[in-house]
C-alpha cells in the first residue's frame, strides 16, 4: 500500500468518506478548516452531500435529521463551535442517533485562540449538553491513528446507537504525516438500521424522540441508555501501554500529548529512568481498570495534559490513592516540549 502525506484534518475527512459517510454538515472554524475544505471538494464527487450550514446549531440539527434517516453522518468543528452544538448533541444522545462529531480542540475558554489545547475533556467525556448521557470519545495521537479511529467511530456509533466524538487538537489537525488509508467500507457491510425513518409504507411507523412527559416512560428511556453505556464500558475500553512492565513512573497522556510523552519515555530511559506511558485511546469509556492495575505496582503516575487537570480527575478516580498522582499541564495553547516534560518527570523520581 502506498503512503500519502496528509494533514490530520484531511486524513479524518478521507477516512470518513471511506467509512461510508453520506451527509456532512459544518460551519467553518480554525483549526479544522482543511477538514471542511476537503469535504467540500471530495464528498459531492463521491456520492455524498456537503452542506455548509448557516450556523453550528443548524449543522448539528441537520446531523440529527440525517442520522434519523439512517445514513452515516458527521459534523466537525473546534471548541467554541462544539459548545454551540451541545444542545443538538444532547438530543442526538437522547434519541439514540448514531453520528460522528469531530472536535479539533483549540485554546479556551471563550473565543480563546487557535493553538492546540485539551480543555474540552470535561465537555466531551462528562456530558457537555444536559441530561444523563455519554458520548463514545476517541482520542487519536497521530494522523494515521486519526484515520483508523474515524472508521471505528462510525462502526461503534452504529453498533450502540450512541454519538461518537473524535477529540483531537489543532496540532493533530494541522500536522502532516504519512498515512496508509484503509480501503473503503463495502456499503452492504454496514448493518441495517430497522429503527430509521425511511418511509413507513408496508410497516409500522418508526418514532424517534428524546421526549417522554411521563417520568416512568422517561426513566425507561434512560435505563436503555444506561444499559448501553455499561455495555460499552465493558467492551470498548481502548488504550496503549509503552514500557510499563518495569516502570517506576508512568505518564498518562492522550492525543498530541500522548505522542510527545512517548518521546519523553524514550529519553527518560536513555538517562536510566524507568518511565512508562499509558495512553488512553478511548477517553470515554476511560481505562480505569488498566490504570488501577498499574497503580498497584507503580509508585508514581504523572498526568500530562494541555489543560488545568481535567483528565487528571479520572486518573485519580482510577488510582484511588494507591500511587502518587502528580500533575503537569499547560494552558492557553502552549505545548510543552519533550525536554520540559522530562524535567517534570525527574522531579518525581528518586535518583
Amino acid at each position, binding site marked *: 500500500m502506498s503512503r500519502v*502525506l496528509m494533514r490530520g484534518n484531511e486524513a479524518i475527512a478521507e477516512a470518513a468518506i471511506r467509512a461510508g459517510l453520506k451527509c456532512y454538515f459544518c460551519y467553518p472554524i480554525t483549526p479544522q478548516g482543511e477538514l471542511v475544505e476537503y469535504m467540500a471538494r471530495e464528498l459531492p464527487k463521491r456520492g455524498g452531500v456537503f452542506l455548509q450550514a448557516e450556523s453550528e446549531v443548524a449543522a448539528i440539527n441537520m446531523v440529527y435529521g440525517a442520522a434519523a434517516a439512517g445514513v452515516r453522518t458527521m459534523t466537525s468543528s473546534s471548541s467554541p463551535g462544539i459548545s454551540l452544538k451541545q444542545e443538538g448533541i444532547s438530543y442526538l444522545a437522547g434519541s439514540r442517533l448514531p453520528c460522528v462529531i469531530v472536535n479539533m480542540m483549540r485554546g479556551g475558554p471563550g473565543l480563546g485562540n487557535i493553538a492546540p489545547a485539551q480543555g474540552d475533556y470535561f465537555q466531551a467525556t462528562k456530558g457537555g449538553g444536559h441530561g444523563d448521557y455519554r458520548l463514545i470519545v476517541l482520542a487519536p495521537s497521530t494522523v494515521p491513528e486519526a484515520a483508523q479511529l474515524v472508521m471505528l467511530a462510525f462502526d461503534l456509533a452504529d453498533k450502540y446507537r450512541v454519538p461518537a466524538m473524535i477529540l483531537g487538537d489543532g496540532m493533530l489537525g494541522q500536522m*502532516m*504525516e*504519512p498515512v496508509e488509508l484503509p480501503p473503503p467500507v463495502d456499503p452492504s457491510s454496514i448493518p441495517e438500521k430497522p429503527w430509521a425513518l425511511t418511509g413507513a409504507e408496508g410497516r409500522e411507523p418508526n418514532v424517534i424522540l428524546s421526549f417522554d412527559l411521563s417520568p416512568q416512560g422517561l426513566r425507561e428511556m434512560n435505563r436503555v441508555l444506561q444499559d448501553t453505556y455499561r455495555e460499552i464500558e465493558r467492551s470498548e475500553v481502548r488504550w496503549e501501554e509503552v514500557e510499563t512492565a518495569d516502570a517506576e513512573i508512568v505518564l498518562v497522556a492522550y492525543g498530541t500529548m500522548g505522542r*510527545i510523552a*512517548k518521546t*519523553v519515555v524514550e529519553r527518560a530511559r536513555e538517562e536510566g529512568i524507568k518511565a512508562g506511558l499509558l495512553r488512553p485511546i478511548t477517553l470515554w469509556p476511560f481505562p480505569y481498570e488498566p490504570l488501577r492495575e498499574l497503580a498497584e505496582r507503580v509508585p508514581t503516575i504523572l498526568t500530562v495534559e494541555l489543560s488545568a487537570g481535567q483528565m487528571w480527575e479520572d486518573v485519580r478516580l482510577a488510582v484511588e490513592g494507591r500511587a502518587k498522582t502528580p500533575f503537569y499541564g499547560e494552558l492557553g495553547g502552549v505545548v510543552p516540549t*519533550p*525536554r520540559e516534560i522530562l524535567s517534570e518527570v525527574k522531579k518525581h523520581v528518586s535518583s
Partner: protein
Amino acid sequence: MSEKKGDGAMEFGVIFAGFGGQGILLAGKILARAGMEQGLEVTWLPSYGPEMRGGTANCTVVLSRRMIGSPIVDAPQALVALNLPSLDRFEPQVAPQGAIVFNSSLIRRGVERPDVVGVAVPANDIAQELGNPRVLNMVALGALLAACRVVPLEAAMEAMAHELGERGRQGLVEINRRALELGFEEAQKQLG
C-alpha cells in the same frame, strides 16, 4: 541519514523559518515527502497562527527510521533561516554540532554560535539569477541537503516534481530543480 546519540537518537529534526510567502512550508513539505518516499517516518508541523498572514512562518520536519513520538523538537539538528528574525529566534535552539543554513541575501550577520556549522547561502540572489525569485526556498533546501545528508538531492528533486505536478505546476519543475542544485553546490563549496 545521520545518527546522533542523545537528543533524539536516529531522528533528524529541522526547523524552516522565514517570512510568510518565502515558501517555508512548501520547502518543509518537500523534505518530508522526500523522506516518506525514501521509506522514512516523517512529521511536518506548521506554525499556523495569525502570523501566517504576512508575518513570520515556520515549520518543523522530523525524519526518522522509527515511529516518531514528538513532532515538536526542542533541539533541532538543523535550521533553515530565510530572514533575520528567524535566525535570531531559532539559533539558540539548534543542537550542538548542528547546522544553520541562512539566507545571506537578507541576513547581514553570520552565525554566532561557535558549536554549530553555519552555511551562508544568498538564496534571493541565486533565485533572481535563475529568473524567478520565488525559487529561493529550493535554493535553501538544496543547501540544507548538502549540509545534512538526510535524503539524497535526487529524492528531494523527485518529491518536488511530484508536489508541483499535483498542483498543476509542471512548468516550474525545471527551474526548481536548478534551484535545488545551485543551493546544494553553493553549500558544498563552503563546506569543502
